[in-house]
């Protein structure tokens, strides 16, 4: 029941925001719905804590140790984004003179996006998972082009076509999965339920599953931004509102990787571990390296951090490719910490871009001087994303490197190279942006909007120093689930 309650809380907001979601009222409603959703998610988490994994709605919905962790992150980042979006959008509305209709569209589409993300995580049906992913894409397309600039339109078109075609591949993979499942479970709606598929995964036809997995990897991989399918990602992050960049990086990429992980469990059963492992390791490492080197030549601050998202998702994908309880645990920890940290980065970057009036790194100078709290928020968030202790990313990267040394030692230098280059791409620029004297014409605004940054960074620091025992157990169980 609680699963349905969570989804209802998230979905209820869509029509109401579409009708009345403009101005301050809309922002308040947006925060309200996300608070409700977070409360429902917490209740769900408590139930999972007591009863373990369970299904609902005649087996159509599922919550287990893997999904509950990501659902919790969704809830937290959703509420933070709603909070940040309030001040941010009030300013953007004036700056771009957005009509009331456009603001309603923004809130309704944003809520649709959050609801489809939750649906993707909570459904047990691999077909509905696809439908939810496609829904999430469609709802963010109009958000990317919200300001109707030439650049925004171009980015949104690219996003729509590339992700649309990518997801078409994932649908073909899902059809093939159903094709393989039919042989064992017969025709019917149950043959796409993940729990049923996982029960018979050793009997699924290996050849069909191999092709199905490749299609799903390419399809959902487009959404994760795995190289060479990452073309849309920096553009969409840079052109859209910063609140949208925060959830694209923080939530959408995670959910796409989650879809691949669900498929991986099935294909591991049919083919043995090596097949999916090698693919994930290859794609992950390639993304890490290419994104790292691309960062060196970025001049736009939002593009810089968009590439950083590709780098981190590549690292997480690589970790799941290494496999084994330790690396899978590290991969999950990395996903969670990255979500919380990267959305914080985008909140503070969004605010800084508004203050300065430009996205160019060269022009954003001396944040500590013109807005000390914002400067601190940005500096801490960036240090955390670079994997400085006590960030949770430090722990996860440490674990990933250790397990690589054990499992595939010759890949360690490449891994370190990627991380080093990414560090070199971000750290010096962060210094310039935070310290020094600021330029003329900075319009400093209220920093109320970036309060969630400090909350989220505290959570990330907690993940790095002392992870609550419940969370450790959930992630360990999830790692075992992924290990098969």
């Amino acid at each position, binding site marked *: 029941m609680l699963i349905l309650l969570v989804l209802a809380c998230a979905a209820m907001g869509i029509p109401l925001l579409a009708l009345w979601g403009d101005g301050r009222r809309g922002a308040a409603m947006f925060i309200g719905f996300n608070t409700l959703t977070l409360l429902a998610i917490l209740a769900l988490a408590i139930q999972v804590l007591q009863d373990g994994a369970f299904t609902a709605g005649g087996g159509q919905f599922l919550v287990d140790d893997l999904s509950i962790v990501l659902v919790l992150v969704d809830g937290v980042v959703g509420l933070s984004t709603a909070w940040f979006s309030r001040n941010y959008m009030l300013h953007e509305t004036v700056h771009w003179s957005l009509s009331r209709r456009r603001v309603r569209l923004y809130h309704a589409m944003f809520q649709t996006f959050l609801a489809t993300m939750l649906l993707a995580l909570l459904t047990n049906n691999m077909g509905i998972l*696809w*439908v939810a992913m*496609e829904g999430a894409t469609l709802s963010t397309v109009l958000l990317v082009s919200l300001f109707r600039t030439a650049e925004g339109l171009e980015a949104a*078109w690219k996003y729509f076509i590339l992700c649309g075609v990518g997801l078409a591949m994932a649908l*073909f993979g899902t059809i093939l999965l159903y094709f393989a499942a039919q042989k064992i479970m017969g025709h019917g709606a149950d043959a796409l339920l993940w729990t049923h598929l996982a029960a018979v995964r050793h009997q699924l036809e290996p050849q069909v599953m191999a092709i199905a997995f490749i299609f799903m990897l390419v399809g959902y991989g487009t959404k994760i931004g795995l190289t060479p399918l990452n073309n849309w990602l920096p553009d969409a992050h840079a052109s859209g509102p910063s609140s949208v960049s925060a959830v694209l990086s923080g939530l959408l990429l995670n959910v796409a990787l989650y879809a691949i992980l669900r498929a991986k469990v099935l294909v591991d059963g049919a083919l043995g571990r090596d097949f999916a492992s090698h693919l994930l390791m290859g794609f992950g490492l390639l993304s890490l390296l290419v994104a790292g080197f691309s960062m060196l030549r970025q001049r736009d601050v939002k593009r810089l951090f968009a590439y950083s998202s590709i780098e981190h998702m590549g690292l997480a994908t690589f970790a799941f490719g290494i496999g084994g309880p330790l690396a899978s645990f590290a991969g999950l920890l990395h996903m969670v910490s990255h979500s919380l940290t990267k959305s914080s980065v985008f909140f503070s970057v969004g605010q800084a871009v508004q203050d300065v009036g430009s996205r160019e790194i060269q022009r954003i100078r001396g944040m500590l001087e013109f807005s000390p709290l914002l400067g601190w928020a940005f500096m801490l968030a960036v240090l955390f994303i670079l994997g400085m202790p006590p960030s949770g990313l430090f722990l996860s990267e440490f674990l990933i490197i250790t397990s690589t040394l054990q499992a595939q030692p010759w890949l360690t230098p490449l891994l370190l190279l990627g991380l080093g280059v990414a560090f070199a791409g971000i750290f010096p620029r962060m210094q310039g942006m935070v310290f020094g004297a600021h330029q003329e014409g900075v319009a400093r605004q209220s920093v109320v909007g970036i309060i969630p940054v400090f909350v989220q960074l505290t959570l990330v620091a907690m993940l790095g120093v002392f992870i609550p025992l419940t969370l450790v157990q959930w992630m360990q169980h999830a790692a075992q689930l992924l290990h098969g």
Partner: protein
Amino acid sequence: MTITAQGLAWGIPLLRLLAALLLLLAFAMLAQRRLLTLIHLLAWQGVVLAAGTALVALLTGQTELWFSAALTLGLKAILIPTVLHRLLRRLQVHGDVEAVLNIPLTLLAGIALVIFAFSLAAPITALTGPVTRGMVGIALAAVLLAFLMMITRRKAISQVVGFLAIDNGLFFAATSATLGMPMIVELGVALDALIGFVILGVFFFQIRETFDSMDLQNLEHIREE
């Protein structure tokens, strides 16, 4: 899924014929220069799809597939082509499709893609019963041909037609190779297709408003620095 021997005798050849028609239409779209004809071909593909779904419904006796066939006919053969047609007129897009590659070369590439699709689908085909043999290959070929069309065209509308043709190929895979996906999934997919189409329509007007043209060359300004 059980099919009667009688059904096998006439139903399967008919399904194969429809599959062949689908592939033929995909090729025709690849070779077509005029936007208007392109949309007509897309509509015909929708008709073939609906007929294929109805045939599978008849052969297997699944009532929900009749619903699916009706939905396909309404959406893919009538509604979407009509709206595209109107858009074309309201936006006053004239003239030929500008292709990046010339047509004969594109067709040759298309033939290579079909061979590739069949060899990729060969291990799957080997496992299927007599009913669905070859269907996966044809569906995959139709998808890849639509892909090729998207890559080689510049106008926004022809890219959208390619996008919808990919959808058609996938839908054919779902109905003919697996004899129908679960209803809830099919409904979801149809809903997504519809929403996607509405968003595309909104897009057209935005692109038109901003650039005064539907040529996608206008959308090539973001450069890596």
